């Protein structure tokens, strides 16, 4: 008789090693919240190339940094937001303007629909939003069609090869969940990504919790069947809903480096990458570049 359940715990480097050049990679994060940054930095350290990243629907620094580090060929996102810091995400802007990446032009609804079609095995979905806009012109694979006298966008399915996300907690068996205090809404894109994925789903989490905790409040579970990586402060400089706020000073520093590069001076961005990504051996090393005091100051008041 066996009662040994298989644990689904990986370390960050094992998780990042699942990525191959050219894969279609789903990434969680919405603006400043819940980007899987510890995993993203580990992917960059592995010098992966040619990824299609499906992030957001409105994404943030996870997308900008992967682009800035040269890992990305194509970005599927409704936008890359650095609101209240700079008007536009610097590496995304630079790479798109230089033609170094393709952008699948969409909005948040089209982003969700492409994933839903993949999740449900549908070749496409027809959608009224976006007719009469530039979106079908800019995307060769997103045509406008007539059906019953009305015009629709024909949104093709977008299956994912692998998904990385960040959340507050998980048990060792792959049940990933939001913090009880996550008051921005329980789910942005985590389930949408996991359902559209035809490969592994990896979640970094602030902490692993005992199985009986996830069993006790199953309504908080966002995703089942994930591989889990324990990475406290794993969303930094982003925030983790219900746990800590985004580090907007760090964003400003990053954005300044990115803007300098965009305007012709590559040094500050290179220094940023060396200091925060390539230099540290792992996530703990990264956290030392930030400092415990600064991290603690971001923590949301104890419940």
């Amino acid at each position, binding site marked *: *008789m*066996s*009662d*040994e*359940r*298989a644990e689904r715990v990986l370390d960050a480097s094992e998780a990042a090693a699942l990525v191959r050049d050219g894969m279609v990679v789903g990434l969680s994060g919405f603006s400043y919240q819940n980007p899987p940054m510890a995993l993203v930095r580990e992917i960059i350290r592995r010098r992966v190339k040619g990824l299609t990243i499906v992030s957001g629907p409105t994404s943030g620094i996870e997308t900008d940094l992967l682009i800035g580090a040269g890992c990305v060929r194509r970005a599927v996102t409704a936008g890359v937001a650095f609101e209240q810091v700079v008007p536009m995400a610097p590496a995304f802007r630079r790479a798109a303007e230089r033609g170094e990446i393709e952008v699948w032009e969409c909005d948040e609804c089209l982003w969700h629909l492409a994933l839903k079609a*993949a*999740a*449900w*095995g*549908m070749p496409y979905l027809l959608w009224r939003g976006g007719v009469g806009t530039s979106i079908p012109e800019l995307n060769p694979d997103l045509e406008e069609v007539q059906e019953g006298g009305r015009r629709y966008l024909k949104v093709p399915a977008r*299956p994912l090869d692998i998904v990385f996300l960040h959340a507050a907690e998980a048990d060792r068996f*792959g*049940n990933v969940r939001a913090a009880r205090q996550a008051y921005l809404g329980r789910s942005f894109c985590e*389930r949408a990504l*996991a*359902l*559209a*994925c*035809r*490969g*592994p*789903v990896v979640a970094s989490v602030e902490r692993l919790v005992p199985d009986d905790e*996830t*069993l*006790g*409040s*199953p*309504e908080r*579970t966002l*995703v*089942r*069947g*994930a591989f889990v990586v324990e990475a406290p402060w794993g969303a930094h400089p982003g925030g983790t809903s219900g746990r800590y706020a985004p580090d907007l000073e760090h964003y400003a520093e990053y954005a300044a480096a990115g803007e300098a590069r965009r305007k012709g001076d590559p040094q500050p961005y290179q220094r940023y990458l060396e200091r925060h990504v390539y230099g540290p051996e792992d996530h703990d090393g990264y956290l030392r570049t930030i400092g415990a005091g600064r991290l603690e100051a971001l923590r949301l008041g104890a419940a």
Partner: protein
Amino acid sequence: MSGAGSGLGPLLACVLARELKDGEVVAFGLHAELLLAAALLAQKLHAPNLAIRHGLRVERGPEIGPAAWTDARRSHAHEGIEYLESHDAILDVANPASPMRFCDVFLVGGLQIDREGSTNLIGLKGRDGRMALRGPGSIGTTSIGTLARHVILFSPEHSRRRFVETVDYVSVPGWRRRAAAGLEGGPALCVTSIAVMDFAGGLMRLRSVHPHATADEVRRRTSFPLPPEGPVPVTLPPTAAERAALESIDPSGRLERMPIPAGGEAS
């Protein structure tokens, strides 16, 4: 014989449990205590990573019990539930490669089951070719039975009216209908109260006969030929390990008391 492991309920739970593989997700309907017992048994014996999707819940319970909506169940309400979701999660069966897929293996029955493993819950035709008996409806079976990786047919009743040459209507397509529709594979197994059938060349054949029945009886109660000729193995009764495990997931002997339609008319 008495105690955990005796009777038809425990035997069927063991037969089904043996077919469930570690790491899979098994799905079945809400009113299916026997199937829940089979899944919990597999989880306990050889498939600790089997995920059990019981209605809207992904379950990891210590024991079977009355239906979830009854007061008797109430005290265990939140025990062993890994995940709750809204009912449209059944659509997630369409991506069998996602860790969030609805299921890998689906347990399904029918008013009629035919030689190639098609099922029918829609109705029965009269002599005029129109629907003479309205069935309950396909419920959740059609899409899940079409899209799940593995389908196991389960029909306690084993009778000629149930096991027919060709179903009158198709709720879930069997081997040939699947091939014609461009779908791979087909049902793997069919478990009844008297026998276990599997498929070869897209047609049902007898794999084993339960200890209380005979191959002749099984064939008499089936409207189509059931190869192979010659002697057929006896279904392995519950082993000591299975009996011990049943003892723990069914301490009050609910399975043994479960009314199971064992036969049906033989003509």
